[in-house]
């Protein structure tokens, strides 16, 4: 039964969605609405599951005294701090008149979000710019025809997407300036490539989904 029940649920839900898409009338639309609501509820629990799993893994690392103990301690402290302040502010906000959200400007949660979380996460993402520059200098070479095409496309788009591109080619008629070249690459070459990828993915998705709905693909159930 451990395999049959999930297979039956998958089949019923999958078929309901397909029917509801082509016949958006009651009772099929009702089934679709129920399943959507259930999905939102299950997804909410999944967030908690993920958070608790992170706590479990970090706690285990501390108990076993592995190499990343410092990072694990930091994760647990940050998690509990944000959680505690969030709950405290939320409770305070509900009982206040007028009520406010724990995320409103001026709350402790908002202070942590704006002054710690935002700069730290933006910094992590910004580091990409530095690594891209270093990698481009050392490894981005026109070794063959394909690499040369990529390099040229990168050159035109990178320069054409910023105002300095048009400054450099300002002496040319507007339709030949770098921004127009970049637009053409994005609208024609990029779009054609993206469409090919999207159609391929869509066909793959349809066939995989059908295999899952019909119970032919069971890898998602896990091993026995």
């Amino acid at each position, binding site marked *: 039964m451990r395999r049959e029940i999930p297979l039956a649920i998958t089949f019923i839900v999958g078929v309901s969605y397909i029917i509801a*898409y082509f016949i958006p009338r009651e009772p099929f*639309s009702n089934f679709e*609405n129920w*399943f*959507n*609501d259930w*999905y*939102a509820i299950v*997804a*909410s629990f*999944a*967030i908690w599951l993920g958070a608790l799993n992170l706590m479990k893994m970090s706690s285990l690392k501390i108990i076993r005294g592995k190499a990343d103990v410092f990072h694990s301690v930091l994760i647990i402290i940050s998690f509990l701090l944000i959680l505690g302040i969030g709950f405290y502010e939320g409770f305070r*906000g*509900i009982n206040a008149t007028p*009520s406010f*959200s724990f*995320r*409103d*400007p001026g709350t402790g949660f*908002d202070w942590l*979000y704006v002054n710690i*979380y*935002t700069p730290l*996460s*933006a910094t*992590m*993402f910004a580091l990409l*710019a*530095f690594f*891209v*520059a*270093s990698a*481009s*200098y*050392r*490894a*981005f*070479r*026109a*070794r063959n025809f394909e690499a040369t095409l990529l*390099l040229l496309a*990168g*050159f035109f788009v*990178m*320069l054409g*997407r*910023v*105002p*300095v591109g*048009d*400054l450099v080619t300002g002496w040319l008629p507007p339709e030949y*300036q770098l*921004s127009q070249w970049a*637009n053409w690459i*994005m*609208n024609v070459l*990029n*779009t054609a490539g*993206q*469409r090919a990828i999207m159609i391929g993915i869509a066909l793959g998705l349809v066939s995989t989904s059908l295999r899952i709905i019909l119970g032919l693909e069971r890898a998602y159930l896990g091993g026995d």
Partner: protein
Amino acid sequence: MKRTELIVYFLIVAFLLAAYFFFPKPLNFSAAVSIIIVIIMALAFILVFVRTIQGHFIGRRMVFVFVGVALLLPFFMQFKLPLQISPEVRSAYDALVNLPPGSRVLASYDYDPPSAPELQPMADAFIKYCFDHDLKVIIMGLWPQGPQQANLSIEAAFRENPPLRNNIKYGVDYVNLGFQSGNEFVILRMGESFKAMFPTDLYNTPYDSIPLLKNIRNYSNVDMSFNFSAGRPGAVEWVQVAVDRYGLRIASCNTAVQAPQVYPYLESGQLLGLLGGMSGAAEFEDLTGKAGKASTYILSQSFAHVVVILFIIIGNVAFFREKRTKVD
């Protein structure tokens, strides 16, 4: 960590602290100083070029210094580069401009702080435009941090134009429905009922008691949508579900990384317009007539792109020179 690295980090922190206390007002270089700095950078690049073709590649830390300087310097320079408005930004702006006052716009904030440098300026410009032109904004988020990013936009609009704080009423001119988990299933369910996915707003106010939402049941009751997207769920899911199935009119604001993925939807007419990356944000700010962060950041991005391109050219010149030497 090496001792020298520790000393360098200490010096950087000391320099930043000194700069913070000694320059309380923003520091602006004159045009002459700006030109001198650009010339020094150009000379440094010539030096790097010569060293590289001699077979001495500079270390990655030195590359980082070049990029860092290129990103930082424009913040202290006073010149502005002319912007060419791209057709996709123009069409997004036109779609917004053509909405009559009182129109209801659904704004989905589907991003988090790492993408904020690109998307927040777009969101700020959008909110300012809506508040200035009496467009009613319904905010929601498919990413947990989205609604808070929206709050930052609203706060920025109020800070820039203080009278708005009294004139714009929550629940009447805008509402923040908060975050709902469920990715594209939330979009799908909203096609039938907004209330089913958002029974209360961010402040636990019941959906039915919010004046702005009185006659809004589903997508057919909103005039347009703006999506700020950094990945999944985002623009692609909104097009596939809300546009294709329910006919929602939507313009998309994406990070530069995600923008190429949504171009096909622009060409097919499923998207009304597209703001891609920092350039899209700067162009949008230019069109709305209110220069914001993107108008400054785009200068930094321009410099950084030029630096990366110069490094690519130098690296390739050295590569071909080495190849020719081997052949000889």
